[in-house]
């Protein structure tokens, strides 16, 4: 082995391996499994996918596909409106759950359930609740008003809003939990001092809570936006992209093209999202790898 030769001083500019200590050799060996996984299942697929999506005709086809434009708008609505509503609720609830009460402790244990259980059965459960003929919602509407309830998932606006609702239902506990840790990290004497000075609820939030949680809150919002781009289940399992392919988001659209055997279109639709994704990813990496 080259390492055993490293004692020989007569060789000028020894090869790299001979300058490595045994610890560093182990370092490379231990890092190798991940590098292999990374090369085989990230680098290769991404390069291959980009190569498939290289033809400009793909982008022309996407541009001419009304479903793509609709999906892009839906994704934007999902991210800008959905995520901000979710994070505002999470911020509000983090204050609620930070209260020291036994029943709130118990409620927080229950509150985490949507995040702890898999999304497939619960999303399908919601889907059946809104079934126009047999769902419990329309049964209740009928028994109270005598009228048939609406065909909920057949209206694209309602269907997309419900997909956002399902997404919020699923991931609200996680973000609330994170914001609670942020809230609990604030020194309590600040609030006590504010109390003495007669500060209102809003003033306490505005001048103590918000300044200390601002960074965390914005980081969480951006992170949630990136991840929500990959939220396939909330839309696919609730609406399947329907009615008439009007509720697709980019993640379900990519899979739709894939199922139609239009892999290059699928890749092209993902490439189109990159100008929005990469700056967010870059920003997050800057923030997290400080």
């Amino acid at each position, binding site marked *: 082995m080259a390492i055993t030769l490293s004692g020989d001083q007569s060789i000028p500019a020894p090869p790299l391996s001979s300058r490595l200590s*045994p*610890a*560093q050799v*182990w*370092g*490379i060996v*231990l890092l190798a*499994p*991940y*590098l292999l*996984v*990374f090369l*085989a*299942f*990230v680098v*290769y*697929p991404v390069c291959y*996918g980009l190569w*498939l999506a290289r033809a400009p005709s793909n982008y022309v086809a996407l541009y001419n596909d009304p479903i793509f434009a609709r999906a892009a708008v839906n994704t934007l609505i999902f991210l800008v409106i959905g995520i901000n509503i979710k994070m505002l609720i999470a911020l509000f*609830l983090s204050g609620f759950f930070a*209260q020291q009460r036994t029943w*709130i402790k118990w*409620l927080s244990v*229950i*509150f985490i*359930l949507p995040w702890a*259980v898999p999304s497939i*059965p619960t999303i*399908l*459960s*919601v889907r*059946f*609740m809104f079934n126009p003929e*047999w769902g*419990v919602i329309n*049964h*209740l509407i009928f*028994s109270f008003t005598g009228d048939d309830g609406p065909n909920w998932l057949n209206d694209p606006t309602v269907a997309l809003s419900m997909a956002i609702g399902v997404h919020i*239902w699923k991931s609200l506990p996680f973000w609330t939990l994170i914001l609670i*840790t*942020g809230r609990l990290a604030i020194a309590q004497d600040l609030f006590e001092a504010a109390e003495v000075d007669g500060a209102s609820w809003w003033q306490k939030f505005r001048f103590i809570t918000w300044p200390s949680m601002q*960074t*965390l809150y914005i*980081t969480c919002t951006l*992170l949630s936006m990136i991840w929500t781009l*990959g*939220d*396939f289940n909330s839309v696919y399992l609730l609406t399947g992209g329907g009615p008439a392919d009007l509720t697709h988001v980019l993640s379900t659209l*990519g*899979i739709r*093209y*894939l199922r139609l055997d239009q*892999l290059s279109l*699928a*890749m092209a639709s993902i490439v189109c*999202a990159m100008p929005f*994704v990469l700056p*967010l*990813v870059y920003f997050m990496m800057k923030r997290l*790898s400080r």
Partner: protein
Amino acid sequence: MKLPSLREVATEARLLLIGIPVFLWTMIPIYHMFLFAISPKEDAFSGKLWPDHPTLHNFTIVFKQQHYFLRDFYIQFWNSTVIAVSVGVLTLFIATAAAFSISRLKVPGGRAVLNLALFTYFIPAAFLAVPMYRTMGNYGLLNNHWSLILAMVTIASPYAIWVLKQASDKLPVELDEAAVMDGATTLQIFRLVYLPLMMPSLVAIGTYAVLLAWNEYLYAFLLLSNDREITLPVALGNFLAADDSPWELLMTTGFIYALPPAAVYYAFRRYMVGGLTAGAVKS
């Protein structure tokens, strides 16, 4: 007993005004699933809030595989289990080795690898699924459990490496130095010093990877299609293929499928909350 002041009552009432909607919002979809699981089909489909005759009959049908959609229930349950456990073990192995290498051995280029891993972590999984599907086809792994296991390891390990690296950095360097003085080899340090100290984080990451794989739907349904190879969530999705789906059985199977991860989550909650939230957002 001291009577609560009016102000205390008002505060409590306001908290309840938030707490009750939160409780209902959280529980309704889960209760609805449970309701279907214990209702005969007629009751479930007539919008009753509690069945006239609650029954465990649906569970009997599932456990005896007495329906067309359920004929491979046990093998699918087994597939889910094997895949989840394999993903947990492989992710732990890969991520622990990588975190030890980057954080303790300061391997050259470790920082770059960590950044690459972080980058992967931020790429939405549904986007990677498209090229991943094709790649697995090229490797000849489609319809093979390995395709799903390797895909999930790819998705789970970046986060795992990152969290474990953060945790490793907190261990004092003197421990390694002392072990080296005592003549310990790198592997001995790894096994006898590093692993025992990292246990809480390893439990959290193992649980994270197992749950991630057990819950995964998209990759499972893309990569596996044969009825005897698929995992439970894919089988649940397949219920929807029919127009007259037996929803009460779908919900029963879904309920059974949701129990293990919920149990695991609550059992390891202490580790999960500490280990994962610390890593999820570094403040």
